[in-house]
């Protein structure tokens, strides 16, 4: 691989080519992570950037890390992200308008200043010598890493193990809700419902008299008003209730128009007549 010969001051043309193409894409990915309205898009952009970074790791002679980057980061962590995004709501888009006064300008100013400082720092540092990993990776990259991790860094390694376990336990503690009391029995629940005076019978079913039977359509109450209760709470929360109140009339109007076109009538019958006709059907 090209990276293996990168002990020289300059890298191969292939790597340069790869760097400029993929680097640009990585920056675009990073930018879209920040700028995309929907979290899911951000996550996908980030995943792309990470894959590119994995390639760069490989190019820099870090074979083990490159693979780990793909497997752990892109494979596991980003999926975890996507999972949470789904949990929270894929479609909910963030508003990108800023609510804290001056926050965006200050952030951009700080970011710009910090970037300039970092660039200046790197530019000023006398990074003239590149040793390359030729000798280090001579016995294989994984073996080299293993030798370091299990000798020089064994203590840190053990501690990170502990950290991981703690984090796992912590995540469980945070997300798990301990049941601190006996669950209520059916009887108690029904009694509770009677006591509270809330909706005693089962919730009404969605859909209106066979005209629609989709779950996202509200059923009508006897007086003709649609009832939100008939739609499942999840859909309600997502704001995905379909309003079909005007659909029947539109259908009728379209039907009449078509009929008139066919019959080449010009006059439209009065509305009350139509209604009687419909009723007779």
């Amino acid at each position: 691989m090209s990276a293996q010969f990168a002990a020289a001051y300059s890298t191969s043309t292939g790597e340069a080519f790869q760097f400029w193409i993929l680097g640009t894409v990585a920056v675009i990915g990073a930018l879209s992570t920040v700028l995309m309205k929907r979290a899911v898009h951000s996550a996908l952009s980030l995943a792309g950037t990470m894959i590119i970074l994995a390639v760069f790791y490989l190019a820099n002679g870090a074979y083990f890390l490159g693979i780990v980057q793909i497997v752990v980061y892109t494979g596991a962590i980003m999926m975890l992200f996507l999972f949470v995004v789904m949990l929270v709501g894929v479609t909910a888009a963030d508003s990108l308008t800023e609510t804290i006064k001056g926050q965006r300008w200050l952030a951009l100013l700080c970011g710009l200043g910090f970037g300039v400082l970092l660039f200046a720092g790197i530019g000023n540092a006398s990074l003239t010598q590149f040793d390359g990993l030729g000798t280090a990776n001579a016995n294989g990259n994984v073996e080299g890493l293993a030798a370091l991790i299990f000798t020089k860094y064994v203590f840190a390694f053990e501690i990170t193990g502990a950290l991981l376990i703690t984090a796992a336990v912590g995540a469980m503690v945070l997300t798990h809700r301990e049941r601190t009391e006996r669950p209520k029995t059916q009887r108690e629940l029904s009694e509770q419902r009677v006591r509270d005076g809330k909706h005693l019978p089962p919730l009404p079913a969605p859909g209106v008299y066979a005209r629609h039977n989709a779950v996202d359509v509200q059923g009508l109450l006897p007086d003709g008003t649609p009832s939100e209760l008939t739609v499942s709470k999840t859909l309600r929360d997502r704001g995905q209730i379909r309003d079909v109140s005007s659909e029947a009339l539109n259908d009728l109007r379209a039907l009449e128009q078509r009929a008139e076109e066919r019959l080449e009538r010009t006059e439209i019958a009065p509305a009350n007549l139509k209604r009687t006709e419909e009723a007779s059907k």
Partner: protein
Amino acid sequence: MNPVNYLYLSALLFTIGATGVLIRRNAIVVFMCIELMLNACNLAFVTFSRMHGNLDGQVIAFFTMVVAAAEVVVGLAIIVSLFRSRHSASVDDASLMKL
């Protein structure tokens, strides 16, 4: 090409990530930006490793990944429980630090 360019790229990504942390309100995106910053650091470590011709930089990057993984686990757990109680993943909603 001078491999120093990797460092510039790393700096750029880090800055973008940092700015993202500051301007986004969705906690999940903020988290992603933090991941981006961590990855930018990792890139720098890997580059340093190549520069110095030893594997210490890669070991550090490896540890960074582990820590990042742990952090993501806990962070996402926090976000989930926040979302559960507040029905929102906006970091601005948690402005209880104000008296």
